[in-house]
């Protein structure tokens, strides 16, 4: 069986996240800031008595900052290394089936995308960039250093 992909929009770009990594898709309402944390850490939120560390994907990709001021945001909840994260995305579209194995992207991408890329996969709705969740969570190199 082919891998299932969750298609989301980040910074206006349709990309795919391995659906196996995604626990659920939620709408976040409260967001508690984490002062002094790396910039792509948008804050903390709670889901069913679990603390989620909210990652601003746009910021992690160095493509600007998601507007977190207005109420509800869509996010994909993933578990990584024993911690739960909510990845803020513009829009969650659908779960589709991958029609190919990821293949390297040979064109030059923006550095942020380059960093999180796991390759390109074909789908019914055309080629999609497969995003590495761990790299999104890790954030930029400077955030790692800090």
């Amino acid at each position, binding site marked *: 069986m082919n891998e299932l992909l969750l298609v989301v929009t980040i910074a206006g770009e349709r990309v795919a996240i391995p659906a196996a990594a995604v626990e659920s898709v939620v709408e976040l309402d409260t967001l*508690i800031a984490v002062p002094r944390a*790396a910039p792509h850490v948008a804050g903390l939120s709670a889901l069913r008595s679990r*603390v989620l560390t909210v990652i601003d994907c746009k910021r992690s990709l160095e493509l600007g900052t998601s507007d977190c001021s207005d109420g509800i945001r869509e996010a994909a909840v993933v578990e990584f290394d024993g911690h739960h994260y909510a990845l803020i995305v513009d829009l969650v579209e659908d779960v589709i089936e991958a029609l190919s194995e990821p293949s390297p992207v040979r064109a030059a991408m923006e550095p942020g995308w380059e960093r999180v890329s796991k390759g390109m996969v074909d789908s019914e709705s055309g080629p999609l960039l497969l995003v590495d969740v761990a790299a999104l969570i890790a954030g930029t190199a400077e955030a790692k250093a800090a």
Partner: protein
Amino acid sequence: MDDLIADFVAECREMLEALGGEIVAWEAEPDDRARLDSIFRFVHTVKGNCGFFEFPRLEALSHAAEDALADVRAGRRHADGQLVSAVLAIIDRIGEMIAAIEAGEEMPGGDDSALIDALAPGADGPAAPIVLAAEGQSRSSSAPRTIRLSVELLDRVMSTVSDMVLARNELARRLRENPTDVAVDGAFERLSGIIADMRDAITRTRMQRIENLFVGLPRMVRDLTAELGKQVLVDIEGGDVELDREMIEMIRDPLTHIIRNAVDHGIEKPAERLKAGKREIGILSVSARQSGNQILIDIHDDGRGIDGKKLVAKALDAGFLEKDDAAKLSHREQLALIFEAGLSTAREVTSISGRGVGMDVVRSNIERIGGIVEVDSRLGEGTRMTLRVPLTLTIIPALTLSIAGQNFAIPRSAIEEIVRANGESVTLEHVGGAGVATIRGRRVPEVSLAEILGLDSGIDEKDGTLIVLRPAGGDLYALTVDRIHDHEELVVKPAAPAVMATGLYAGTTLADDGSPILLLDPAGIAQVGGVKLEMQERSARIAENPAASIAASTEVLLFRALDGSRRALRLAVVDRIEEIPIRAVKQAAGQLRVQVGDAILPLAGASGAELGDDKVRLFRLSDGVHEIGYAFAEVIDFATIDNDVIHSERPGEVNGVSLINGEPAELVDAHWLFANHVGAAARNAAQMVCRLPSDDPWMQNMLRPIVEAAGYRVIGDADDENADLVIAAQGTAVSSEASRQTIWLRTELEAAGKKDESIYRYDRAGLLMALKSAHAGRGK
């Protein structure tokens, strides 16, 4: 001990049950290696444990079986039917004895030698074991019913209960939001109570007696002493104290390390001990006790103790410490140096300790679980190490607080006290940009949480609340927060790495309203906030010196400076007040000078301020030799300093602030004024130290300002610091080695004789001369 036996019995029973099938299988197939191994393991374990307890018969039996089986394993002997039966007979006998031990009965009678003999190659069949076994079966077990659980399962239950508590909290919030039936509330209350009970019970399942940690110590010490040629008696107390299982594991290594150190470096060789007048046998006592929500573990040895001076020398060599700082360390601070990384007093590296990974690792391990290590030692008498650790890791009592509308929590174990910033006994000052809080005479560094977190608190610092914290490691500081809310028991979970990377947080938790709360890490905040914990302890001590002797208050002249600030000058240095026409003030020879009568005085207090149009008022300050003018706007009052003086970090015109008549006032440093305005002649490279008797009011009130104006830092008798000069009343005793020079003061005008070198106490000129020559004497 009873517990250990119960453990032993439980373990044996378990193994016997598991062996049941194996034995039969082995009988059918004596060559089966795996079965042989598991049976061997059983008798081996029994033998090992019997050596520990006193069960000679069990030991003899298991030993014989082990020997025979070892031969088979080594291929020296073939497992024939006769051997199998003999071994089985022994296992049955062991089972029988264990049942007897469990029931607390006498050992079944009978001689085991027949069974043991049956093991010998070529012996006859075993002597009727079956009958005995049947007897054993007939007794019902009366031991407490226990089962063994995997730790993972327990952890899962624990975390589920934690989640349940959180779910309960959320439900509580929803119920509050939507007023419901009283019956629903009642049912909910009951549920809450049950959940609380359950959490308590589950917490207890994680508890283990600390005995488990202590039980291996005598053996370890025995091995160590054998290797080192020492004699040590281990005295263990408080094994029944219970501690979180995880905590016990975390303490194991640090404790082992401390004990190794105590035996290796602490306790001397027998000959040395005899020479020092001690008993040949060293005593190492390890004790545990519960104190509030902490467990205290004391490790005390009566060995040679820790040489603080040697530590200081090492620290100087290694560059941890500046020479100046080193001289000021108190005994306790010297000892605390052993926790510095890479510092070891071991003269030589032995196989046991002194390998560079030392007490610093112990401290960091203990601090990681929210504990504290303390050390106390007397040279030649022994050393005491105290570990303080919290009872449990996951549920911690915490205080919730808020800053800029956001809630945070802080572990209550680190909190010393909570005071209002505008409280009566509290003053909050800024010195060189750094906050200093004085709370009932105790000065501690102050850190604003809003500043650290980069939040805008919107509340004036003075309206906030100060939380005095003692983070792991031991030094106080005050944290300013907007307000504090409530005491809560929080279920803390580790935060994601990206959050932990800030170094400010210890974890996350959920509040009653279901929103996440960050748990602050007191030690991390201190670090990020730039509170130098080790350094601070040293400087706080120095600051205490004047505080200790200031009890007899100091008279000051309170005035408003030209720039509008409220300042104070010690009355003693003010000769008189003059009013001078503005034209008498001139910039001359590199600085402002003022003409008063026939004299031209350097003018201070006027820099960067408007002097006014026609007249300027100034203090004439005198140090007995030189005079300075100090311009001011108006005199406010005479006052006394009865609050602590908070000293500024850098020397300057103002050397500190203090609360005078309820408002802060800057203290003008007359010494600095003279040093800078009169010229290099009065300048000192380093401040000299003068000891004055702290209980003599005349010395403190009258003499002290003069001594201080002459450039000395005054300390009291209680301070164990070396003084350059001691001033004492004639006829009192002064320990001679404490100082290089002593000035004796007499109350009579006339000297008692030619040899009397004392100075009449109102002979100001004579005094100043003596002070000056003491100053000069230092340069030699």
